[in-house]
């Protein structure tokens, strides 16, 4: 996920690309927001305003949808997003220890981004691979059977 600062014109271009991909249909708002989220790492306010005018939906509605769903970010994230599953099966299978190790290694709590903008750390609901718990995702990569010892090596893989 990129943190290069984009100017408003580029952001609006990204918004247009997403809206056009779904033929500017109102009911496709969620896939449109998902596309923007994927391309930019989050959904900036200026993008929400533009989508609102293109789809003819009040901006408050766009904001309410964007803030409802966990996978949408409304603030810029770090270069890499770590999603640690904190659901019960992961929790009882050693997830607690892995979570604590992650917290110590990153130096941040869930919901925060490191000062160097490298990592955003969040907890996520069940990823559906409970049989190889504990599990976490770093960007699109999924890691299972985690132990605290593996954490430093996994983190070291990412720039």
């Amino acid at each position: 996920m990129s943190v290069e600062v984009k100017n408003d014109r580029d952001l609006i271009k990204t918004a247009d690309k997403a809206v056009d991909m779904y033929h500017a249909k109102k009911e496709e708002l969620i896939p449109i927001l998902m596309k923007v989220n994927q391309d930019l790492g989050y959904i900036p306010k200026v993008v929400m305003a533009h989508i609102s005018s293109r789809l003819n939906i009040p901006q408050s509605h766009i904001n309410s949808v964007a803030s409802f769903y966990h996978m949408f970010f409304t603030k810029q994230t770090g270069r890499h997003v770590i999603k640690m599953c904190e659901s019960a099966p992961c929790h009882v299978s050693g997830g607690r220890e892995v979570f604590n190790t992650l917290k110590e290694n990153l130096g941040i709590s869930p919901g925060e981004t490191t000062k160097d903008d490298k990592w955003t750390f969040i907890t996520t609901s069940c990823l559906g691979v409970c049989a190889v718990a504990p599990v976490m995702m770093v960007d699109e990569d999924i890691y299972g059977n985690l132990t605290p010892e593996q954490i430093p090596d996994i983190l070291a893989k990412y720039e």
Partner: protein
Amino acid sequence: MNAIKSLDDLKKIREQAIEKRKATANSGGVQVIVGMGTCGIAAGARETMKAVLDFIEENTVKNVVVTQTGCIGICEQEPILQVATSENEKTTYGKVSPEIAAKIMKSHVLGGKVYEDHRIQI
């Protein structure tokens, strides 16, 4: 691909698919199947698949087909690799790391001998 317009069309495709399967099995060829459901991938199946493909390339192994399958259901054994040498002979291996995959390829696929250490019953 022609559209299926009747039960007969469907039956024809079914028979062709079964024939194709038999032919692959009886050709003396080997099928290597890697479980690539999300649980497999979380356990490292992508690296296992890469190790299998690398082995085939480095050793110029012929007559082997590599395919993927979904979640078998014995997730705590992932990554899972299966070697099928004929229609009814399928050996399943569990916890197949890239290193173990290379050993299985050498022992079973090339050498015809089951790699007992990681074999599992399903």
